[in-house]
C-alpha cells in the first residue's frame, strides 16, 4: 500500500515506455506471423502455380498512356482468370537512356533477374521501335510467348508471327480526329499540327498530311521546326478560326523528348484556340479531345488476347490486330471553355470530366428513393384522408351521442324534476324555518345565543346541501363530453338511488340496493353512468308501477363480474318483457310507454358501449325483468 502510494512520475513514465516497446515488438511479431500464416493459407489451396507475366515497357513507368494501359490489361486479365496471376513490370526507359550500353545493361539485368522465374507470358509495350522492347524477349526468353500492344506507327516486322508473337497495333485515328474537329468547329479554316522530328513523329505527320490533302478549304500548318518551349506563346497568339492538332513530339528540334500528355499540358491551357489530341490519356490536360486511342478499351482487348495465349493458343495462330478506329472522346471542361454545345457531339462520343450531378451519380437510388417517397406519400396521404374521414365521423358520432345523451337527460330530468324540486326544497325549507325561528328568538329580551348559533350552523349545513343538489342537477343538465375517471359504482348507485328515492316513494316503489363489498372501481364518466343507472331505475319503476303488482320492488345490484369488470343489475317485479322485444329494446325510438321518447335505453346502450361495456335485458325466472350492464374495471393501482 505505502509503496504504491510512493511512486514517482518519472519511474512510471520509464516503465510505461519500456512496456510500450515490448508491446510494439510483440505486435510486430504477431503481425508478421499473421502475414506468413495468411500467405500460407492463401497459397496452399492453389494446386496450380500462378501464371507469371512480365510486362515490358520501352518507356519509363510514369508515361500516362502506359499507366492507364497497364492497369486496363491487368484488371481485364484478373477478371478472366480464376487463379492468381503474378505480374512483373520492367521499363527500359529508352527515351531517357537511349545509348547502347544502357540497353545491354537492361538486357543482362532482365536475363539474370527472370532466369529462374519460368515466365508464362511476356507482354511488350513497345512505343518507338518495336525492336527495342520487342526484340528483348526473343533474345532472352525465346520460348515464352509474347503479346504486344503498340500505340503508334511503328513498323512491325512482317515475319513477327513466326517468332511466337502476337499483338495489337493501335494507330492514331487521324481521320476520325480531324472529322470530329471540323464537326465541332465548323468554321475552322486553319489547322496547326504540332509534330516532332523522330521517324515515328514523321510517320505520324506523314499520315496527317495524307488526310489533310483530302480536306478542302482547310489550310494545314505543320509546326515541326519550332522548339516546343516556344510553342505555348505561339499557340496563345493564334487567331480564331484556327485549331491545334497535337501529333507526337517524341523529340523536337532541340532534341527534347516529350510525351503526348506533357505536350498537351504545356500547350492546351495557354492556347487561344481549341487543341485536339489523339490519345485518350491526354484528356484532362485542357485539350478538347478527338477520336482517341482509349487506353481502357485497348488494355481490355490486349488482356483478352493475352488470356487466350496463356490458355494455350499459340501466338503465331493469332493474327496481329491492326486497329485505326478511335473512340470519340471529349473533355467536358474544354467544351465549356470553347462554348461547344454538347448537342453537337456525335452520339457515341464519350464526355469526360463532366461534373457528375447528383442525378447522374445516384440516378437509381434517387429514382427508387423517389418511388419509395412517392409511395409513402400516397400511403400517408391516404391514411391521413382516412383518418380525417374517420375523425370527422367519430366527432359526428360523439356529437350526436352528446346531443342524444343531453336530450335523454333532459327528458329524464322532466320525469325527475319533481323529485329534484323536492330535494331542493328540503334544505331551503329548513333554512327558512331556521331563519324564522332565529328571528323569533331574537325578539326575546335575553335571546338564547347558543340556540341561535346552533341555528346558524344548521343553516350553513342546509345551504351546502342545497348547493350539492344544484350541482348535481346542473351536471345532469349540462351537455358534455365523455370524461374518464375512476368511479366508485357503489357510491354512484347510492347517489342515484337518493335522486330517485322521492319519486319511488311517491309511486310506492321500494328501491333496494345490494352492492358487494370491495367492488372494483370502474373507469368512466360519473354523470353518464348515473344517467344510465337513472334510466334503468326509472324504467324499472315504470314497469312495476304500471302493472298493479302487489309487490312493487326495484333492486339495484352491483358485483364484480366474471373477468375484469363490474356487473350492475337493475331488477324489477313488473310484468317482464315479451321475448320478441328483448332485442329491439335498445333500438332508438323503441318504447312501450305512451309518453316515452324511446331514447332512454338506446342512449344507455350508447353510453355503456362508449365505456367499453355491454348492456342487455333478460326476464327473471319468477317475474319481472332485469337489465344488466357491465363496465371494465379500472386498472388497480399498485
Amino acid at each position, binding site marked *: 500500500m505505502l509503496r504504491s502510494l510512493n511512486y514517482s512520475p518519472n519511474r512510471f513514465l520509464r516503465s510505461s515506455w519500456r512496456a510500450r516497446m515490448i508491446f510494439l515488438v510483440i505486435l510486430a511479431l504477431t503481425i508478421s506471423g499473421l502475414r506468413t500464416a495468411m500467405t500460407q493459407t492463401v497459397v496452399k489451396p492453389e494446386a496450380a502455380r500462378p501464371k507469371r507475366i512480365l510486362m515490358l515497357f520501352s518507356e519509363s513507368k510514369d508515361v500516362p498512356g502506359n499507366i492507364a494501359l497497364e492497369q486496363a490489361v491487368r484488371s481485364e486479365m484478373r477478371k478472366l482468370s480464376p487463379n492468381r496471376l503474378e505480374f512483373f513490370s520492367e521499363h527500359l526507359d529508352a527515351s531517357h537512356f537511349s545509348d547502347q550500353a544502357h540497353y545491354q545493361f537492361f538486357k543482362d539485368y532482365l536475363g539474370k533477374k527472370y532466369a529462374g522465374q519460368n515466365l508464362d507470358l511476356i507482354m511488350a509495350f513497345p512505343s518507338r521501335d518495336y525492336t527495342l522492347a520487342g526484340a528483348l524477349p526473343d533474345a532472352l526468353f525465346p520460348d515464352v510467348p509474347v503479346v504486344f500492344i503498340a500505340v503508334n506507327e511503328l513498323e512491325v516486322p512482317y515475319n513477327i508471327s513466326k517468332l511466337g508473337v502476337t499483338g495489337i497495333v493501335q494507330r492514331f485515328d487521324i481521320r476520325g480526329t480531324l472529322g470530329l474537329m471540323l464537326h465541332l468547329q465548323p468554321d475552322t479554316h486553319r489547322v496547326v499540327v504540332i509534330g516532332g522530328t523522330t521517324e515515328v513523329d514523321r510517320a505520324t505527320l506523314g499520315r496527317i498530311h495524307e488526310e489533310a490533302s483530302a480536306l478542302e478549304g482547310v489550310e494545314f500548318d505543320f509546326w515541326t521546326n519550332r522548339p516546343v518551349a516556344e510553342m505555348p506563346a505561339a499557340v496563345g497568339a493564334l487567331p480564331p478560326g484556327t485549331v491545334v492538332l497535337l501529333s507526337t513530339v517524341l523529340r523536337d528540334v532541340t532534341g527534347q523528348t516529350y510525351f503526348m500528355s506533357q505536350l498537351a499540358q504545356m500547350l492546351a491551357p495557354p492556347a487561344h484556340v481549341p487543341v485536339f489530341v489523339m490519345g485518350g490519356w491526354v484528356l484532362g490536360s485542357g485539350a478538347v479531345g478527338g477520336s482517341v486511342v482509349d487506353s481502357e478499351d485497348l488494355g481490355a482487348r490486349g488482356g483478352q488476347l493475352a488470356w487466350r495465349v496463356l490458355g494455350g493458343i499459340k501466338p503465331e495462330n493469332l493474327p496481329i490486330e491492326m486497329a485505326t478506329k478511335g473512340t470519340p472522346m471529349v473533355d467536358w471542361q474544354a467544351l465549356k471553355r470553347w462554348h461547344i454545345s454538347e448537342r453537337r457531339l456525335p452520339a457515341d462520343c464519350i464526355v469526360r470530366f463532366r461534373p457528375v450531378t447528383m442525378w447522374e451519380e445516384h440516378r437509381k437510388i434517387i429514382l427508387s428513393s423517389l418511388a419509395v417517397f412517392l409511395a409513402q406519400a400516397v400511403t400517408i396521404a391516404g391514411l391521413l384522408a382516412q383518418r380525417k374521414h374517420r375523425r370527422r365521423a367519430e366527432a359526428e358520432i360523439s356529437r350526436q351521442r352528446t346531443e342524444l345523451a343531453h336530450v335523454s337527460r333532459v327528458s329524464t330530468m322532466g320525469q325527475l324534476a319533481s323529485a329534484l324540486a323536492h330535494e331542493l326544497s*328540503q334544505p331551503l325549507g329548513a333554512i*327558512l324555518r331556521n331563519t324564522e325561528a332565529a328571528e323569533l328568538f331574537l325578539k326575546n329580551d335575553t335571546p338564547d345565543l347558543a340556540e341561535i348559533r346552533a341555528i346558524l350552523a*344548521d343553516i350553513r349545513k342546509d345551504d351546502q346541501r342545497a348547493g350539492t343538489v344544484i350541482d348535481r342537477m346542473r351536471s345532469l343538465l349540462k351537455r358534455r363530453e365523455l370524461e374518464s375517471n375512476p368511479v366508485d359504482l357503489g357510491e354512484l348507485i347510492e347517489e342515484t338511488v337518493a335522486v330517485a328515492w322521492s319519486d319511488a316513494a311517491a309511486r310506492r316503489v321500494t328501491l333496494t340496493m345490494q352492492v358487494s363489498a370491495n367492488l372494483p372501481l370502474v373507469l368512466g364518466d360519473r354523470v353518464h353512468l348515473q344517467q344510465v343507472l337513472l334510466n334503468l331505475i326509472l324504467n324499472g319503476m315504470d314497469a312495476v308501477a304500471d302493472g298493479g303488482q302487489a309487490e312493487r320492488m326495484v333492486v339495484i345490484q352491483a358485483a364484480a363480474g366474471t373477468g375484469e369488470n363490474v356487473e350492475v343489475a337493475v331488477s324489477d317485479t313488473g310484468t317482464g318483457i315479451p321475448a320478441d322485444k328483448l332485442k329491439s329494446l335498445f333500438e332508438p325510438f323503441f318504447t312501450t310507454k305512451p309518453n316515452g321518447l324511446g331514447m332512454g335505453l338506446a342512449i344507455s346502450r350508447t353510453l355503456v358501449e362508449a365505456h367499453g361495456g355491454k348492456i342487455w335485458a333478460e326476464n327473471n325466472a319468477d317475474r319481472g325483468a332485469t337489465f344488466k350492464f357491465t363496465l371494465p374495471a379500472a386498472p388497480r393501482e399498485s
Partner: protein
Amino acid sequence: MIPSAITDTVFVVDDDASFLKSASRLLRAAGYTVKAFESASAFLGQLTTETSGCVVTDLQMSGCNGLELQAALARSDNPLPVVFLSAQGDIPTTVKAMRQGAEDFLTKLSPKEKLLEAVNRALARNALERTQREQLRDLRERFATLSPRELEVLSHVVRGKMNKEIAGELGINLRTVKLHRTNLTRRLQVHSVAELTRLVEAVGLFKAERTT
C-alpha cells in the same frame, strides 16, 4: 296569536331530519308544544284518544307517506287535523289531501305566517271537533240507554208519524206508545220533536232507513 288551547301539541312528522329540526324549532319558538317524529309510524304508534293537537307533516316520505298518515288518522278514534308541508305537490295529490280533510296544504317554502296560521286553524279545529266529538259521544251514550222498542218508536217519531199510526204499525196500544215517547224525551233530554230529529241526525241514526 297563541290560541287558548296552549296545552295542545303540534306533532311534526318529516323524514328529513334537517327540516324536522328546523320546523320544530320554529314552532317551539312560536310558543307551541312540539313533538317531532321522523316517520309516520313512530307518530301513529304513540297516538292515543287523549292526544290533542295537530299534525304538520311532509307529503312524500319513505315508508308511510303523508296521505297514508292522514288516512290512518282519519280511521282512528282521534282524527287530528293535518297540515301538509310539501316540498312540492302535484294537483291530484293536493286534491286528494284536501278531500281527505287536510287543514291546509302548504309548501315547505311558505312563509312562517302562513304556517303558523295553518297550525292555529288546525288547533282550533281540533278543539272544536274535539268538543263536537265529546258531545256526540255524550249523545251516543244517551241514545245507548234506549231500549230496542224505544228506538223503534223513535225511528217512527223522527219520520213524523202520529202516535196512532205508530201504535198501529208496531201492533201495540196507544198508551204504550205515549209511554215510550215520554221515556225517550226524558232520557235524551229533549223537549220537542224538532230537537229530537236534529239529535238523531247528528248521531247518524236510521240513515239507511231514511234513504230507502
